[in-house]
């Protein structure tokens, strides 16, 4: 900031000077000036300036010192700081120069109020230089003969002024030109210095406010040299495989300084440097043999130097050079192990011999081949078998026995000591105990307790246990004096490893002891899937499968089952990890439960999917406990009711089935042409035991094709046909009862056109048709006949169904059941079985119908008529009807039939014309 003001002030100062020059040139005469002229002031000091007016102006302009006004950069200085020394001189005093600014002007009020500038000066404010401190010098060797010396110092505070630093140096008897820094104020380089003479060095700082010098530094420049590092470093392998010889050139003359050295080296690829003991290289030299190196190993070397007495600075490290030691014999035999596969045949083994390639520091060169020797211990006479292999494994088929296997690694220089492995018949020796693992520093440590016997070495086998891959065995050897080691391999976290430790003895080996371990555990990758095995009213049996090894990510420490109702709190149950089933109890019946299961490892837990189930409403046996008593009670009630009815059957019968007078026992029955014996129908008796059917009259009609019906005889049939539509629902006559009669049913019956009623007949019977047409569902049809003739119990058996159209006798079966009760009583059980009259040609059928008994009823009635038989009979009848149906008057006359000849059809009788007319 101050420098900026300085520039401004300087500009104004020049302007004012130009003005004053012009004035002094005669244009305008200056009326005064300020003393001191453009001072440089120390910051914080006091300052007094004088403005001196010219005498000539006093008279000319009536200007006096008491009219002077001092201004700092257009700001009037308070009058208190003025002092009128005489009538031409006014002074202004500043106690602290920090309040000053540029320009400082002397002004005057001419003619009352007109302010005129008389003079102005610039004021430069700064600080005197501080004494430079911390002066230090170093001589950098830049070539064999060039030693520039660079000195640095602390220039001290900023002075706000142009301050010059110079480095001064001299010999006691000779001065040298000063070193002037370029662009900096804190260092300078002397291009060439002479050694072995003390040089006095100091720094001088100068500015307008003063000068300061640092403390002098007296030194011999040879004591502050940083030499160039040795160059042209070369590395040569010597005769010995453990020695490399280094050679180099020094770039500083021994006349100038004697040197000592540091040599460092490292194996290529390694980052750690090793160093040759400094005392071995503390004297001037240009070569050195580094010993104790590994054979057949590439090393990197670097070297530096400094003054022999240690005064001065170390040089930088030289460029790096590499060298390779020569080969040597392998220092040890390869570690060897085996896998014995005895599964193929009991008498021999498949032995997989495995050995590890030697580490470079053990191989000491390029291993050209391995020599494997297998010697049977049992038969010492047999020569050992030798194999030369270049790989690190060998598979042999050996008979059961004890063998000594020897492996030797060979390189260009020689062979390694042999590695010996005994393949015993059995692992009969003492095993290790207490195998344990511990993850440590990202590696898996395996420890064990040694057996009591002396162990040559241990073999640690391990493999990754996985569902997706086989257990690929890795192994390593450990010396017999250790009881723990880190697994040397790529041990992955969250994977299960099966680790087995075998102790090897001089005469055999102990059995392996295994342990499973994880380097690091994580929570399982999925949770168990739980489901119900059985659900009851208050309990549910849950079942799940164990997680696979790949899913576990650690040892499953426990399972936790969480279950809850829709709106209830979740309940957790911890389950032993060995279990796969658990019974939840104390559940609420008929409730939806959500259950899930978490599996926990040391790394955390993970939940499986939710599963829902509903408990049952009733428990086991509850339904039975309710239903069985209810059924028993119902049965009991029924039984009681039956007993009651049985006891009161007379009374019931009286009310429900009142005794109907039996017409057969009436007097009019005495003239009935036929009275069939009741006892022929035992089934009928059983079905109607209560005498609901008092009697059945049987009418047999024989149709003889040889006979033709007279015209007169056929008339009633025509009438019947004509009247069929009007025959509905009429029931009359003595005892003319119709079971299940209804007008509608009669109408439907009349549609079939199969039943006719001879209205001209004085006797009408109701005829019930129970079979359907052409296998259709039978419709109960009845036609009612009116007769003045008393009701007859008749029964007719058809004796000949197989007769052709030419058969002399075609018996049409009619069956009528009539109870003789009041026709309005439809609740009465009654049955009518008739042969349904069918007609192939409606036009040809004249007053003839066949009633067909339904098969079902025929069985119960014992009438044994097959449907096809009936149809055949019907066709015969129809054929006969075309030729004319002749009703035998004999039958109409009522010739009594013997019991055997009793027809199975029943036809109503027509009394008036002495024959029966089918309806």
């Amino acid at each position, binding site marked *: 900031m101050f420098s900026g003001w300085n520039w401004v002030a300087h500009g104004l100062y020049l302007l004012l000077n130009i003005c004053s020059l012009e004035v002094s040139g005669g244009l305008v005469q200056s009326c005064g000036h300020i003393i001191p002229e453009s001072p440089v002031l120390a910051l914080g000091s006091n300052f007094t300036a004088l403005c001196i007016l010219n005498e000539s102006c006093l008279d000319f302009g009536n200007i006096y010192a008491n009219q002077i006004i001092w201004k700092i950069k257009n700001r009037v200085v308070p009058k208190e700081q003025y002092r009128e020394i005489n009538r031409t001189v006014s002074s202004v005093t500043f106690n602290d120069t920090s309040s000053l600014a540029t320009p400082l002007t002397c002004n005057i009020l001419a003619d009352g109020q007109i302010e005129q500038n008389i003079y102005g000066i610039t004021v430069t404010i700064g600080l005197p230089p501080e004494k430079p401190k911390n002066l230090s010098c170093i001589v950098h060797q830049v070539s064999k*003969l060039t030693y520039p010396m660079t000195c640095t110092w602390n220039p001290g505070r900023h002075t706000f002024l142009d301050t010059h630093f110079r480095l001064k140096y001299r010999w006691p*008897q*000779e001065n040298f030109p000063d070193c002037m820094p370029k662009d900096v104020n804190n260092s300078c380089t002397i291009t060439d210095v002479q050694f*072995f*003479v003390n040089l006095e060095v100091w720094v001088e700082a100068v500015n307008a406010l003063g000068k300061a010098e640092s403390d002098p530094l007296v030194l*011999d420049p040879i004591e502050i040299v940083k030499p160039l590092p040795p160059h042209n470093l070369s590395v040569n392998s010597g005769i010995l495989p453990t020695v490399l010889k280094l050679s180099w050139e020094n770039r500083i003359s021994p*006349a100038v300084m004697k040197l000592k050295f540091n040599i460092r080296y490292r194996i290529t690829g390694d980052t750690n440097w090793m160093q040759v003991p400094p005392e071995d290289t503390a004297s001037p030299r240009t070569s050195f043999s580094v010993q104790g190196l590994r054979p057949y190993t590439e090393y990197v070397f670097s070297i530096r130097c400094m003054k022999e007495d240690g005064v001065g600075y170390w040089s930088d490290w030289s460029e790096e050079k590499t060298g390779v030691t020569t080969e040597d014999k392998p220092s040890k035999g390869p570690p060897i192990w085996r896998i014995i596969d005895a599964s193929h045949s009991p008498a021999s083994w498949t032995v997989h011999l495995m050995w590890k390639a030697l580490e470079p520091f053990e191989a000491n060169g390029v291993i050209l081949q391995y020599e494997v020797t297998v010697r049977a211990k049992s038969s010492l006479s047999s020569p050992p078998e030798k194999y030369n292999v270049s790989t690190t494994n060998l598979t042999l088929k050996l008979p059961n026995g004890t063998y000594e296997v020897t492996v030797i690694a060979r390189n260009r220089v020689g062979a390694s000591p042999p590695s010996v492995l005994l393949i015993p018949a059995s692992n009969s020796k003492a095993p290790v105990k207490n195998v344990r693992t511990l993850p440590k520093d990202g590696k898996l440590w395996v420890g064990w307790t040694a057996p009591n016997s002396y162990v040559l070495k241990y073999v640690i086998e391990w493999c990754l246990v996985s569902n997706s891959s086989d257990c690929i065995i890795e192994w390593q050897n450990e010396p017999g004096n250790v009881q723990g080691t880190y697994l040397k391999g790529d041990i992955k976290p969250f994977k299960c490893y099966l680790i087995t430790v075998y102790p090897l003895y001089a005469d055999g080996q102990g059995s392996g002891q295994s342990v499973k371990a994880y380097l690091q555990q994580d929570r399982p990758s999925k949770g168990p899937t739980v489901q119900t095995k059985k659900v009851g009213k208050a309990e549910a049996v849950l079942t799940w499968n164990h997680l696979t090894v790949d899913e576990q990510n650690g040892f499953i420490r426990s399972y936790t089952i969480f279950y809850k109702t829709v709106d209830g709190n979740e309940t957790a149950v911890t389950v032993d990890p060995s279990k796969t089933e658990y019974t939840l109890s104390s559940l609420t019946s008929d409730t939806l439960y959500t259950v899930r299961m978490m599996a926990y490892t040391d790394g955390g837990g993970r939940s499986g999917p939710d599963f829902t189930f509903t408990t049952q409403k009733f428990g086991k046996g509850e339904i039975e406990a309710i239903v069985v008593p209810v059924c028993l009670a119902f049965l009991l009630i029924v039984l009681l009711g039956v007993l009651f009815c049985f006891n009161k059957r007379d009374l019931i019968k009286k009310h429900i089935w009142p005794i109907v007078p039996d017409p057969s026992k009436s007097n009019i029955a005495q003239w009935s042409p036929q009275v069939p014996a009741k006892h022929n129908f035992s089934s009928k008796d059983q079905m109607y035991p209560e005498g609901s059917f008092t009697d059945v009259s049987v009418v047999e009609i024989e149709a003889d094709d040889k006979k033709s019906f007279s015209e007169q005889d056929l008339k009633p049939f025509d009438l019947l046909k004509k009247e069929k539509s009007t025959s509905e629902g009429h029931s009359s006559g003595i005892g003319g009862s119709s079971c299940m009669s209804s007008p509608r049913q009669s109408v439907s019956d009349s549609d079939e056109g199969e039943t006719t009623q001879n209205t001209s007949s004085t006797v009408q019977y109701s005829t019930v048709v129970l079979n359907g047409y052409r296998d259709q569902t039978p419709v109960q049809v009845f036609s009612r006949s009116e007769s003045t003739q008393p009701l007859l119990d008749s029964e007719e058996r058809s004796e000949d169904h197989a007769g052709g159209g030419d058969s002399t006798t075609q018996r049409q079966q009619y069956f009528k059941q009539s109870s003789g009760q009041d026709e309005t009583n439809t609740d009465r059980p009654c049955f009518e079985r008739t042969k349904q009259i069918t007609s192939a040609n409606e036009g040809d059928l004249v007053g003839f119908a066949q009633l067909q008994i339904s098969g079902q009823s025929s069985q119960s009635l014992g009438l044994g008529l097959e449907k096809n038989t009936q149809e055949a009979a019907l066709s015969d009848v129809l054929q006969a009807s075309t030729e004319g149906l002749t009703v035998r008057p004999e039958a109409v006359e009522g010739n009594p039939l013997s019991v055997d000849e009793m027809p199975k059809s029943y036809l109503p009788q027509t009394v008036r014309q002495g024959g029966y007319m089918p309806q």
Partner: protein
Amino acid sequence: MAAADSPSAALRRHDLCSRGIRLAGKMRSDVVDLLDTYVERQGLDASASVAVVEGVPAAAVERWDEQTGTQRLLENLAAYRAFRALLAQMLEEQREQLGEADAALGRALAAVLLQVSAFAYHLEELLRLESRGPPSEEGAGPPPAPHLGLFERKLRGLGVLRELAQWAVRSARDLRQLAKPSPGSSSAPGPAESP
């Protein structure tokens, strides 16, 4: 004498001798290098024989081992003072001859001149420790340079440098002799002790 016997004086003397020996060694090394450069740059033959340079005391001396310390110092001082004057003259002539064109030779000459001057200072300091003080330089300077031709001047310069190299060797031996703790070697006045 008292000062010479004080421990600090002995230390100072040893230091001066030690550094003087190393300075002489470096000086010789530099002069040998300079000789090669000089011969090359001046177009001279390295095997050229040069007559004895006038004003330069000969490094070779008979009965060297019988000399006293002070005598050695005085002879050395006289020689180096002469070398200082001769080298300054050579530097001047070289600058006049080659200007700034051969700055490397000039710098090397200047460096040797500085070392000669420094060695002279060492010798003066040692003489002060001997309580004799260095002799005045008046009259000890080299004789005024005769007006020689350019080639002669080159040959003269070659002779100066060769003699300086020889003196550097002798001075180192002298200082080693002085540094030896041989009582009386420095104090015993000898016939050649007076300048």
